[in-house]
């Protein structure tokens, strides 16, 4: 064990805006080929898996309604969940932000006297940077999902919600395993080929010793049931089952929006999540547990309920639908922007279309990356189409663009504040004001159109001044010799 480079390198505090990051990514030919292959494979499989269910649209509507209903009464369901988990032998903690959640988990691990934890893939713990916080406290956190292991060993960042190492091909993964496994525990077998079967076997051997000796595990959860206190984790590899059943202490960090009212509600998501996510009828393993069970599984269970910007998101009537998200990643796989830019350009653990509406709401639009994310889309609507809980991502994107460009009231840290218009959007606002002036005055519009038509030979290829940024990546349309309105008037007055 080297003791260095534990934890996943966090997303930089000052991430470049999306266009700059994306420009880098699209130059990477290997990355683009990896992403294209992966997203096309999974989107075709998903289409077939969804087509098997004649009632897909009804399941989608029901899933949306369950989530909306829960959010509408979120305080009540969280209190019910708290009581049910406690009654079943668990301990519930509430964390207002990332720092508080990290402190709670660190203290819980310290109290066990252990210096290492095994982890089930969890978006919430990545969001709060738990691995880095544990590392600072001298606690090693081992990711056990194969893709997370690849990312962790490669000192890399996740680029996809479901398949965090989607940007790596098999040869790159073999090289990472060979170079890094020995520093973390059992080295990769030699010789090691790049067949996925061989690589999976290497991961099995490497992680086995960690599972068998682990005393503490950290997980997230896909769902929490308020009426029973039941936690649900969907997975494929069995690393989840290992972490959820072998250790003595289990700590689950879960966003407050993951609660559903009843055990029966799971009948919807057990059908829609696997098909949307891995494009299977059912994922290989799903574990459901309620508190602790005598003689079976961990004897101590801690649930850390995480806010970290979720209540701020809830305060926005248009934006709150992002909290319906069940993290299936179907929207990433169909997105033309994600396919080309890759996950890292989004500067967050939540990439793709859902990340473009979730990150600026959870973190606010104060940074360059968060202010640019609502623009990281062509608004084609494919994401909305495939979303199993019908999040209208384009609607929220447009809403957030308006917020960035015009400012307005938002909630940050539970406090209502008024956002000022973003810098650099002045030209856009001036253009919009000019357009309104013209469109409100038909006479002025006609005069402007004629003037433009007469001067069409002088039209530049790129716009000057503030407009240059826009024409850097776009062709200016050619100006017609005659305006539509003049053409219409002429055609109508000249009957054949």
């Amino acid at each position, binding site marked *: 064990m080297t003791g260095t480079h534990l934890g996943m390198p966090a997303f930089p505090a000052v991430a470049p805006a999306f266009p700059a990051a994306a420009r880098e990514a699209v130059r990477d030919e290997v990355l683009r080929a990896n992403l294209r292959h992966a997203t096309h494979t999974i989107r075709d499989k998903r289409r077939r898996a969804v087509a098997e269910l004649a009632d897909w649209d009804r399941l989608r509507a029901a899933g949306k309604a369950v989530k909306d209903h829960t959010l509408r009464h979120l305080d009540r369901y969280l209190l019910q969940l708290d009581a049910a988990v406690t009654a079943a032998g668990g301990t519930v903690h509430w964390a207002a932000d990332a720092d508080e959640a990290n402190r709670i988990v660190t203290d819980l691990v310290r109290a066990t006297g252990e210096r290492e934890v095994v982890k089930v893939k969890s978006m919430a713990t990545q969001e709060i940077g738990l691995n880095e916080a544990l590392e600072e406290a001298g606690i090693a956190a081992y990711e056990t999902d194969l893709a997370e292991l690849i990312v962790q060993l490669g000192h890399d960042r996740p680029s996809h919600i479901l398949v965090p190492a989607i940007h790596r091909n098999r040869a790159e993964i073999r090289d990472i395993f060979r170079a890094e496994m020995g520093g973390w525990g059992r080295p990769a077998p030699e010789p090691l080929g790049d067949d996925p079967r061989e690589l*999976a076997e290497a991961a099995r051997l490497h992680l086995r010793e960690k599972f068998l000796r682990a005393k503490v595990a950290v997980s997230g959860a896909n769902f929490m049931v308020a009426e029973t206190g039941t936690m649900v984790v969907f997975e494929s590899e069995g690393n989840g089952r290992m972490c959820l059943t072998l250790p003595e202490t289990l700590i689950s960090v879960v966003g407050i929006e993951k609660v559903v009212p009843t055990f029966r509600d799971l009948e919807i998501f057990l059908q829609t999540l696997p098909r949307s996510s891995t494009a299977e009828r059912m994922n290989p393993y799903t574990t459901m547990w309620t508190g602790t069970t005598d003689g079976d599984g961990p004897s101590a269970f801690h649930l850390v*309920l995480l806010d970290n910007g979720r209540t701020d998101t*809830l305060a926005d009537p248009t934006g709150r639908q992002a909290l319906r998200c069940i993290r299936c990643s179907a929207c990433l796989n169909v997105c033309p922007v994600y396919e080309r830019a890759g996950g890292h350009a989004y500067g967050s653990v939540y990439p793709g279309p859902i990340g473009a509406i979730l990150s600026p709401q959870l973190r606010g639009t104060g940074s360059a990356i968060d202010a640019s994310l609502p623009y990281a889309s062509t608004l084609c609507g494919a994401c909305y189409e495939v979303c199993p809980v019908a999040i209208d991502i384009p609607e929220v994107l447009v809403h957030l663009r308006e917020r960035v460009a015009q400012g307005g009231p938002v909630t940050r840290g539970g406090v209502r504040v008024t956002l000022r218009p973003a810098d650099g959007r002045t030209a856009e606002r001036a253009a919009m004001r000019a357009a309104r002036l013209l469109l409100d005055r038909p006479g002025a519009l006609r005069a402007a159109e004629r003037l433009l038509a007469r001067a069409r030979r002088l039209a530049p290829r790129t716009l000057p001044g503030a407009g240059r940024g826009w024409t850097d990546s776009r062709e200016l349309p050619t100006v017609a010799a005659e305006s539509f309105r003049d053409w219409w008037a002429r055609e109508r007055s000249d009957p054949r």
Partner: protein
Amino acid sequence: MSSKDRILGRIRRALRDDAPAVEVPRDYLHAHGSRTPAERVDLLAAHLAEYRAVVHRTDEAGLPPLIARLLAERGARSVLVPPGLPPHWLPAGGPTSVPDRAGSTPAELDRVDSVLTGCALAVAETGTIVLDGGPDQGRRRITLIPDHHICVVRVPDQVVDSVPQALPLLDPTRPLTWISGPSATSDIELDRVEGVHGPRTLEVVLLGTQ
């Protein structure tokens, strides 16, 4: 103020716009098709096989020799046995039985070759078997650590069509494990590989009247 109160306060303030109440439409299907019991069992077998579980069919008389054969073909020297497994399922003179004990360490269980269990129920439409820690299934870890799991499903009694039919039959206070084929990963180029950490071989025995 505790964080709990702070978060609950934020939620209540966030919901001041008083969005309309939402009714959950439950008009989705209870099952995707109507099947005879035999068709239901056939569908389960087909879907299990599609996700690379190995499916066998037998009756009460044929069960012990079948299990003996499966263990022998595997070369198993030891087999984990939950406390409530019908004793006659295990062949005489077969591999050493290892009882499911609270005191066993994970490392000890790692040295056992196979595990033999029953199940709580099976879901035909998704090719899933569900374990609930009942007497013929044992602790969750015994079906996780050995590399070879033989699971007996009583057909057609234990088979339901769909997920909506399965949930009312399960007790959420028990630890539940839903298993659909052996463990798998698609993390490398989305190429599916069967067998990572859980049992790499899952054999499902459909036990009925032949």
